[in-house]
């Protein structure tokens, strides 16, 4: 080799070496993961982190009640005038007073309230100060009065009373214009710096794709109730399934010249390695002893609890979970008149109550009760007036917030005047929200570590509303 390298030759060689080194490092990184993959008996290489949850760990769990929960039958007036008016307005949807579960909010509003008979666990959490209610919260572009609504004098959320539009608006909190991100995703983008590792995303969905967790930087990662979703054959150690899986991995590992193929191969490789890593971490994490009900909500929340327990091994100090339960669009058969506590709505409420209670107990078991906050959301509330067999699409709704950090045992916001045609009604008993989704989300985001100056990054419309912190955390 000649020692008389020209400057041009030297620079050219150096560049090639740099590119080569980049490729080598990249390959080494891949080999580290693929090496683990290639030795299934050994399992993937776990990050060198372990132990209990750090004191500054926090998790938010969004429990989305898909279809529109009729919270008019979750929180029921329990004084004589209030209950009688409730029966008169709701007719066949009215629950019998016997069996209702009384609650005693710390801040009385002059009315007495009770919960649906199917949620004794939530009543217990409320009474113990571990759960709070947020009254009449919903999508708003600006604070809106009935007069403004009827006169159409303030901008209103697009497509009120429509399922998918309201679901999206609850999850992105931008009801007046299209948004490509959800508020959970924007929140994750902002606080992801807390995490020392991003091998597994801090945004995990237990219910598939959702708008809530769509961020610009942090991607949502979908996990099943049994763990990360894997390709068929990924757990096999021999035979045809094993051979097919290895062949797939080899194909995904080959260099691709076309951009689309390269991206597809890269994502597929990443999916395989992420799944193997997460499942390995889950399998080595301490099992959770708390019993969960074997239901849709119970199984999802059980996995959320397991992922919280695994957070130290994943290098995560912030996690956002999305859990979902469908079936709340109770236009028909909302309840059975012969036994009003056994209809479709009662069954769903019971499932939520039991699953949320188990989840809270699991966080206590993990020593993380004060670091995990669960909150419910839904498309919209439902009409106070019965349609004869159920209730139709409404607007404002009541939500639960559960966790050790919650200033529980109280109702935040303002319960609406439960009068069809009253000051809080559009028509039909569709309550105009007196608290916005922005205020609800801002309170949660503030607890999660977002500074007041950064709130508008997560919630662009928050400046339009009076209370960026509702005080329930």
């Amino acid at each position, binding site marked *: 080799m000649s020692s008389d390298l020209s400057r041009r030759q030297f620079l050219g060689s150096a560049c090639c070496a740099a590119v080569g080194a980049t490729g080598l490092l990249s390959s080494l990184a891949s080999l580290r993961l693929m090496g683990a993959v290639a030795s299934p008996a050994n399992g993937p290489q776990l990050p060198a982190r372990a132990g209990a949850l750090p004191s500054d760990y926090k998790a938010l769990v969004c429990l989305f009640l898909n279809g529109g929960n009729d919270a008019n039958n979750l929180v029921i007036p329990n004084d004589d005038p209030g209950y009688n008016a409730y029966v008169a307005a709701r007719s066949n949807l009215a629950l019998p007073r016997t069996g209702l579960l009384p609650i005693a909010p710390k801040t009385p509003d002059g009315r007495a309230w009770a919960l649906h008979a199917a949620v004794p666990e939530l009543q217990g959490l409320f009474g113990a100060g571990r759960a709070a209610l947020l009254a009449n919260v919903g999508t708003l572009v600006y604070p809106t009065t009935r007069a403004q609504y009827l006169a*159409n004098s303030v901008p*209103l959320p*697009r*497509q*009120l*009373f*429509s399922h*998918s539009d309201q679901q999206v608006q609850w999850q992105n909190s931008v009801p007046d214009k299209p948004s490509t991100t959800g508020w959970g995703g924007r929140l994750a983008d902002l606080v992801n710096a807390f995490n020392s590792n991003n091998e597994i995303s801090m945004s995990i969905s237990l219910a598939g794709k959702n708008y809530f967790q769509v961020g610009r930087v942090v991607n949502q990662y979908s996990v099943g109730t049994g763990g990360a979703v894997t390709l068929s054959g990924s757990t096999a150690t021999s035979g045809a399934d094993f051979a097919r899986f290895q062949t797939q991995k080899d194909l995904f590992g080959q260099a691709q010249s076309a951009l689309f193929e390269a991206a597809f191969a890269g994502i597929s490789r990443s999916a395989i390695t992420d799944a193997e890593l997460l499942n390995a971490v889950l399998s080595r994490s301490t099992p959770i002893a708390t019993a969960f009900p074997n239901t849709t909500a119970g199984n999802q929340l059980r996995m959320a609890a397991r992922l919280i327990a695994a957070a130290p091994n994943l290098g995560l100090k912030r996690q956002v979970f999305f859990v979902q339960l469908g079936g709340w669009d109770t236009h028909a058969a909302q309840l059975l008149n012969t036994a009003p506590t056994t209809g479709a709505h009662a069954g769903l409420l019971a499932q939520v109550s039991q699953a949320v209670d188990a989840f809270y107990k699991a966080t206590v078991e993990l020593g993380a009760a004060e670091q995990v906050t669960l909150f419910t959301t839904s498309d919209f509330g439902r009409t106070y007036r019965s349609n004869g067999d159920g209730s139709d*699409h409404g607007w404002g709704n009541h939500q639960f917030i559960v966790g050790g950090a919650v200033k529980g045992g109280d109702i935040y916001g303002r319960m609406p005047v439960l009068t069809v045609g009253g000051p809080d009604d559009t*028509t039909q008993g569709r309550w105009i929200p007196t608290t916005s989704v922005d205020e609800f989300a801002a309170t949660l985001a503030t607890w999660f570590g977002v500074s007041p100056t950064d709130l508008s990054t997560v919630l662009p419309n928050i400046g339009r509303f009076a209370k960026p912190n509702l005080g329930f955390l």
Partner: protein
Amino acid sequence: MKRIVAGAVAFAVLLLLVVLAPWRQPPPTPSPVAANPAIGPSPGLGQPEPSPAVPPPPPERSTLADALNAPGGEIHADLKIVAGVLETFRSNFLQTGNPAGNNAEITATLTGRNRLRLALIPADHPAINREGELCDRWGTPFFFHAESATRMGIRSAGPDRRMWSEDDVVLEP
């Protein structure tokens, strides 16, 4: 040159007015039905309209729903007619999509209580009951199920007039 341009602009404006005028309904009577983003500010609500110098031509009556509930017709065709009316509405309100609310509110919007005063169903259509609801051929109000800005389920209670029973007829979007 400026005069020619001004004349052309004036002619275009006049032509536009002539083209749009047949679809414009007189201002609606204020009603308790709810607001709709498609409605926009209603200049006629709560105040008299100024008298125009030239009486407008009588509004052209939309024929989109003429065959709705017609004798000899059948419910599936009726549902498609209603779906067609909604589709036409959406094509005129691309930003907002379907009319929002319950049957009475949706019917009010379809009969002209909207920003363009576009009456796709005449307000005196026999399918509209006293409560302002659009009804099926057995006299029961249709049930509108808003799934999204572009998807609306339409349900008829069927001959037994009981919603959510076995003989209901549903047009899914």
